[in-house]
């Protein structure tokens, strides 16, 4: 069964080719059955592989499948080979299963749009590239998938390309992630020149053998890889592209900009964990980047009016939690949060999409309201996702994963109290902005009429993901609450366990109570401000300092303004003053001399035969003279 591994990424790629070649001739029903069915087959095979992989003890929790030699030149021999271990298996499961549910949802969501087959072609290509990213057994193959998902992200953000604004958002996403990708490529070059291989497992074992902890080379490489990770995962300082990426269709936001692609940075850091352990400075940077990002994005999410932008900032913030977990060495916690986040954030995005389509492409939350009665299934599933996002204690998946991160952010040997405090403040804000969204959207008076009620294909994925958002956390329960460590044990086959300070188990309970109270308190404050006394928030925003702060947060802490003034405008200015590229003047000068010489010589072409004859005669005389004089 494990030999079927190669089929998993190939099915979406074949389906992509079919849709590209024949998509325009197929009916919408045909396109949907190919586009959704292919991901279904992938998910089905992945589940079977997972079952075989987990139950068969002979594999030693790793399996490698070499398909063919990709390149062979001067000892550089990357192969097309897939590597299966607990880390890649969890990513594969999330990508294919959540991906399948989102495709199913999209089949109805996009039904009235032009370019239906184009949409599914891109989506299938994305799933194929993402699977290559997580399954590649060498960094070159990983990089292929990495760029592939970046391309699909670009294509899908700009899916409605007729609006120039969407094209701008797509280019912005592509260019900003390119900054990180360049750093990552340089990191890969250095890694190859240092170790002479791209094979991930060889790199990991050789790195430990050759480099001491804190050696310069390890720090440089880890820092460059971190650059790639923050670009892809929209972390500080390259987070500015993700809110604008919401220009794409909502299923795209759910699949690429919430569940899978933006967590590629988390995958990269977890996959190369040995390098980050060898570079403690960089690992601390990972934690700090995560902590700062989760706070900044949390504040920005607090004041957004567009429901998708709230979710976008929330995604940045939650990935910040994952980075913080990776930074303190709680690898399993980071991956666990990735999984639960994929469930509830995909659910929230698809719930938001249902509302948006029901209200005829209205994204402003303040024009929604009163949808609790009108869209009951959406309301209850959205509520489940929101509860999981704010980590409502005991009953939601988000609680167990986020609590694990908060706990380790302090007690891990690499943790610190201020990381925990940042996480706790972030959790509070998560609760406030999430339930602000819920209250504004679903309660109060209906402000826009409902045009379109979601059908089965939109509701079933919502319900499945709602169930997963609630029970997905029971895979791993803390010591004092059941003590189930299925997930941690599984992931620790490949990632090192977190090393913690010795503490009493009652302390852990105390921490859990604090974070639970914070989450519930946040919900209560959102209730007070946005449901009970909506007038109070109006009065509050009259205060000049708060109004200013609100404007500042609304624009994402002014990072766009800063980058525009720091990079974009100087570049445009340079481009403008150097419109006639001065380096080119050498080449254009040669062309100019030739043209002038031509114009001058053309004068002699009179068409008069005797003139030519005289030219020949004088030429002959001159030549003779030269010979006589020189010899």
């Amino acid at each position: 069964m494990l030999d079927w591994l190669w089929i998993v990424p190939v099915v979406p790629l074949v389906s992509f080719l079919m849709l590209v070649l024949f998509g325009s001739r197929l009916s919408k029903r045909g396109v949907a059955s190919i586009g959704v069915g292919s991901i279904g087959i992938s998910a089905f095979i992945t589940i079977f592989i997972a079952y075989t992989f987990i139950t068969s003890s002979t594999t030693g929790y790793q399996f490698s499948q070499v398909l063919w030699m990709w390149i062979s030149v001067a000892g550089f021999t990357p192969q097309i080979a897939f590597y299966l271990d607990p880390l890649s298996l969890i990513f594969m499961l999330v990508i294919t299963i959540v991906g399948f549910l989102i495709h199913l949802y999209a089949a109805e969501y996009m039904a009235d749009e032009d370019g239906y087959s184009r949409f599914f072609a891109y989506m299938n290509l994305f799933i194929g590239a993402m699977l290559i990213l997580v399954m590649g057994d060498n960094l070159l193959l990983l990089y292929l998938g990495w760029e592939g998902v970046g391309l699909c992200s670009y294509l899908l953000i700009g899916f409605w390309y007729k609006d120039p604004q969407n094209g701008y958002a797509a280019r912005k996403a592509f260019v900003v992630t390119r900054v990180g990708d360049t750093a990552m490529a340089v990191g890969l070059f250095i890694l190859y020149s240092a170790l002479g291989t791209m094979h991930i497992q060889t790199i990991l074992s050789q790195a430990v053998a050759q480099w001491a902890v804190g050696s310069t080379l390890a720090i440089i490489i880890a820092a460059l890889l971190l650059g790639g990770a923050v670009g892809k995962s929209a972390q500080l300082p390259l987070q500015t592209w993700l809110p604008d990426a919401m220009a794409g269709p909502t299923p795209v936001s759910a699949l690429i900009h919430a569940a899978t692609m933006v967590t590629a940075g988390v995958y990269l850091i977890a996959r190369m964990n040995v390098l980050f352990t060898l570079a403690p400075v960089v690992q601390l940077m990972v934690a700090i980047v995560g902590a700062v990002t989760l706070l900044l994005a949390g504040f920005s999410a607090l004041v957004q009016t567009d429901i998708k932008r709230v979710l976008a900032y929330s995604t940045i913030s939650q990935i910040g939690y994952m980075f913080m977990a990776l930074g303190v060495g709680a690898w399993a916690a980071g991956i666990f949060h990735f999984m639960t986040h994929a469930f509830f954030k995909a659910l929230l995005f698809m719930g938001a999409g249902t509302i948006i389509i029901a209200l005829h492409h209205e994204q402003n939350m303040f024009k929604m309201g009163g949808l609790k009665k009108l869209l009951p299934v959406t309301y209850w599933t959205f509520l489940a996702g929101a509860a999981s996002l704010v980590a409502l204690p005991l009953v939601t998946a988000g609680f167990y994963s986020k609590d694990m991160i908060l706990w380790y952010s302090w007690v891990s040997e690499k943790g610190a109290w201020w990381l925990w405090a940042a996480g706790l403040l972030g959790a509070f804000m998560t609760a406030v902005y999430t339930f602000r969204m819920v209250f504004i959207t679903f309660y109060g008076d209906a402000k826009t009429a409902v045009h379109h009620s979601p059908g089965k294909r939109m509701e079933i994925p919502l319900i499945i993901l709602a169930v997963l958002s609630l029970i997905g956390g029971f895979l791993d329960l803390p010591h004092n609450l059941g003590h189930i460590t299925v997930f941690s044990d599984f992931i620790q086959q490949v990632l090192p366990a977190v090393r913690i300070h010795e503490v009493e188990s009652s302390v852990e309970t105390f921490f859990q109570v604090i974070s639970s109270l914070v989450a519930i308190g946040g919900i209560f404050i959102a209730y007070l401000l946005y449901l009970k006394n909506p007038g109070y928030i109006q009065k509050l925003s009259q205060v000049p300092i708060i109004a200013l702060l609100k404007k500042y947060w609304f624009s994402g802490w002014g990072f766009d303004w800063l980058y525009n003034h720091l990079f974009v405008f100087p570049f445009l200015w340079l481009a403008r003053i150097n419109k006639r590229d001065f380096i080119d003047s050498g080449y254009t000068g040669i062309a100019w001399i030739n043209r002038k010489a031509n114009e001058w010589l053309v004068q002699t072409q009179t068409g008069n035969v005797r003139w030519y004859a005289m030219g020949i005669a004088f030429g002959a005389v001159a030549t003779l003279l030269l010979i006589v004089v020189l010899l």
Partner: protein
Amino acid sequence: MISIAVAHGLILAAILFVLGLIGLLVRRNIVFILMSIEIMFNAAGVAFVLGGSRWMQADGQVMFIFILAVAAAELSIGLALILQIYQRTKTLDTNALSKMRG
């Protein structure tokens, strides 16, 4: 046999050649230009014959006969072209025939 100094012969050839060249440059009628070219051919032929007699070899005379044959061939083609040109343009003035300007 009266021997003529080589220098005298060469001066004759040079005068003939320059005469032909001047004719080529100053006449505007194509027929006269062609005749001037013939004079230049013959000037070259005189030089060849002189060379042959100077070194007592037949090569110079062979070359002159060869030049005569080439000149005849060239002349027949040239005259045919002149006839064509005259039929088409009703003129033999080269200044008027400057259509083939580059």
